[in-house]
């Protein structure tokens, strides 16, 4: 690209220089009679016209299409590179905080870092191992003393000393602790009083109650860590001792979840990373579009060439075409996806069933126009087999048409996919595609603060469909020899 621009610049400079050179000369010097040259008289003109070069040049003249082509290329490249980038999430994995098993649902976007806070070297933390690389820590050894987890019949009994607005003061195993109201309200109210005498009001302290939930016990009624949840530290920054405490080595970043990679676009309502889902969905949709385009072109060409070239079949195929062409394409799309199990191959089949018709007709018309041109007649007279004529003489003329149809098939397939998903016959959420991302986002449009989920997937989808459309049309214009006179 750079070379191209430089070459053009140099050409323009040459022209200017030449003009400047001639500008100083007088008319007499500029217009002198040329001497008779018999060789020059014999010279015949030839055109160095090349179809593909002209097409390329005409295409480059369309700035918008060029710009779109660059954007699209980058985008498509990125969709394939994205899974190879470090620290990417699995689009299907439900993201959880591993230590309290809560899903990370509807994390807000955009978040560009996972760092919650930094602590200096030598900070003491309570650490719990997640895996080889990550430790979960509860911030500031002073606040959270320990956690009490009970399962099944092993209930934890404790005495409530003071039931406050935010913190509840309790006595547990002869020690005074504070527990968070948000943590334990459910436990106190729903499970607390089944076997014990129930106090009239929760504030009538002291009384004994129990919990069968996990409770964090705080030494002081304050919580520096994030809502009492674990924060995460890479193992290499921690010096873990046997009693469960750890000391930070150097300036340490405490993270929201055990990954360096933030949820760039947040997570969806099921707790999956939207960024990964969008690219995975783009891959699926592009794949569907590409396969549909290939099928369309293959079937369209084969049928079109036979239809146009074999005269005996023309009549029959035309009649069949007239009948099939009447069937509304949407109906076939709906019907096929209704009957078959939703999957990528169902979608591809449903779309390919009708799309080739238009292509076949177009090819047939083109073939009828060019099949009796002189060079083909000559070819036939020289005894070339029909198959060879079709492939060598006719097909090259159709390359531009084929490329146009392929370019337009992709936005079309994406639209159809969105449509099918919309009426509830599309891919399941297990296979992310642009269609079901849009529909997923659409369900959230009434939720304040979640509307961005629709925005990002629509944006990627629109960029892809619009650029394919514009490039396809620009290419069709460029491929038309009428536009080659520059």
């Amino acid at each position, binding site marked *: 690209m750079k070379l191209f621009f430089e070459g053009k610049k140099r050409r323009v400079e040459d022209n200017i220089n030449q003009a400047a050179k001639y500008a100083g000369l007088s008319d007499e010097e500029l217009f002198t009679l040329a001497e008779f040259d018999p060789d020059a008289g014999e010279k015949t003109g030839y055109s160095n016209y090349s179809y593909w070069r002209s097409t390329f040049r005409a295409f480059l003249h369309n700035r918008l299409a060029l710009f779109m082509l660059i954007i699209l290329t980058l985008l498509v490249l990125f969709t394939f590179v994205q899974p190879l980038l470090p620290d990417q999430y699995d689009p299907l994995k439900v993201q959880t905080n591993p230590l309290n098993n809560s899903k990370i649902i509807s994390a807000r976007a955009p978040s560009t870092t996972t760092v919650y806070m930094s602590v200096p070297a030598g900070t003491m933390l309570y650490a719990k191992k997640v895996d080889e690389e990550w430790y979960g820590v509860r911030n500031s050894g002073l606040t959270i003393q320990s956690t009490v987890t009970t399962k099944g019949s092993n209930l934890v009994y404790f005495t409530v000393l003071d039931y406050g607005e935010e913190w509840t003061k309790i006595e547990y195993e002869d020690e005074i602790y504070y527990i968070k109201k948000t943590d334990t309200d459910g436990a106190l109210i729903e499970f607390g009083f089944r076997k014990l005498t129930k106090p009239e009001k929760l504030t009538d302290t002291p009384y004994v109650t129990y919990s069968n939930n996990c409770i964090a016990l705080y030494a002081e009624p304050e919580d520096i860590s994030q809502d009492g949840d674990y924060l995460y530290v890479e193992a290499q920054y921690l010096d873990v001792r046997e009693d469960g405490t750890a000391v930070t080595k150097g300036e340490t970043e405490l993270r929201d979840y055990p990954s360096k990679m933030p949820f760039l676009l947040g997570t969806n309502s099921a707790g999956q990373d939207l960024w990964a889902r969008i690219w995975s969905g783009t891959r699926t949709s592009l794949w569907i579009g590409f396969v549909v385009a290939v099928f369309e072109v293959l079937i369209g060409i084969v049928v079109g060439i036979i239809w146009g070239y074999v*005269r005996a079949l*023309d*009549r029959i195929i035309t*009649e069949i075409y*007239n*009948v*099939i062409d*009447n*069937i*509304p394409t*949407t*109906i076939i799309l*709906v*019907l096929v996806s*209704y*009957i078959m199990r939703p999957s990528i191959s169902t979608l591809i089949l449903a779309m390919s069933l009708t799309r080739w018709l238009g292509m076949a007709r177009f090819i047939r018309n083109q073939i*009828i126009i060019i099949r*009796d041109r002189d060079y083909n007649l000559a070819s036939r007279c020289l005894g070339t087999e029909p198959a060879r004529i079709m492939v060598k003489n006719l097909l090259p003329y159709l390359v531009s048409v084929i490329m146009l149809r392929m370019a337009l098939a992709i*936005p079309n397939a*994406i*639209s159809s996919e*969105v*449509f099918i998903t*919309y*009426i*509830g*016959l599309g891919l399941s959420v297990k296979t992310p595609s642009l269609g079901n991302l*849009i*529909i997923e986002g*659409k369900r959230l*449009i*009434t939720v304040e603060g979640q*509307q961005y989920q*629709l925005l990002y997937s*629509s944006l990627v*989808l*629109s960029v892809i*469909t*619009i650029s*394919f*459309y*514009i490039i396809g049309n620009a290419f069709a214009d460029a491929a038309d020899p009428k536009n080659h006179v520059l």
Partner: protein
Amino acid sequence: MNRLWQFFEACGRFISAHWLTLVILIVILAGFFALMAWRHLVKYSLKRLGASVLTLLIIITVVFVLLRNMPEEGFIENYDKLSKEQRLQKLESLGLTKPIYEQFWNFLKNLFRGDFGKSTKYSINRDVMKIIAEKAPLSMILGVISMALSLVMGIPLGAAMARKKGKFWDRFGTAFIVFINAVPAAVYYIFIQLYGTKLMSIDLTFSRGDPVTWILPIFSMSLGSAASYAMWLRRYMLDEINKDYIRLARAKGVPGRKLMFRHVFRNAFVPMIQYIPASLLYTVAGSLYIESLYSIPGMGGLLVQAIGLQDNPLVQALVMIYSCIGIVGLLLGDLLMATIDPRINFVKKGGVR
């Protein structure tokens, strides 16, 4: 509004009760029309009609065969609660255990009587046609209004684009057309709904009594056809403008405005007439997207619901109605075109050498 409403409701009921008669009537009328107008048209019309009937038969067969291969839950109401014997009994009473050719024959017979079976999930044991007849009028009235709106928006836009090629309106219209054609309808419909309702501070859903809630669905429904009208009109008008007779008229000093409307527009509009019947019929049948987005109780929304519920008889009936509409639309378009455009010549036979 109310009286208009009643009128449409009555129309809907009438059409759904006598749809087959109406189709036949339309076809006969069209045939008669053609017979009266041009004799050579008759052959074409008959051929075209034959193709349509054949297509319809193919669709009926395909729908029949495909739906018979669906799991049997879709044919029986309360499937989970019944025992195996009861299910078998139910299937027998529906005639689904008979050999396939016998079923097909019964199916055809019922179709001609206008009997599409009974709904199994959506509204148990009610006649499918009755359900549809309730829904059709609202779809029709919305469709007619949005069709009118799309003509009002699309035709002047196309004409303005062709008149001032490369100027503001042309650029604006091109951007509009590219956007509408390239971006899936669902996406911009959702955004129109989201921001439109916010802007007008109204509910997301449609309510029949509140005229303000009619605006957005009708507007969104008309966008697609408006873009296609504008696109085709611009193309045809530019084709006309470059023709010799326009140059001659201009040389003779016909004023620009008159030239545009008398000659260019009128000639360019002829090929567009072909698309109008299909487009009208489709919009009248209701938009799948719009109706389910705004919860409009119309035919399109019904199809989406029926698919979600796997109500086979209802899906079958709706699919048939939609394909019938499509076929009749194309047929009418072709016949209209053939009747109106004197340039179409049926005597000469081209193409096949």
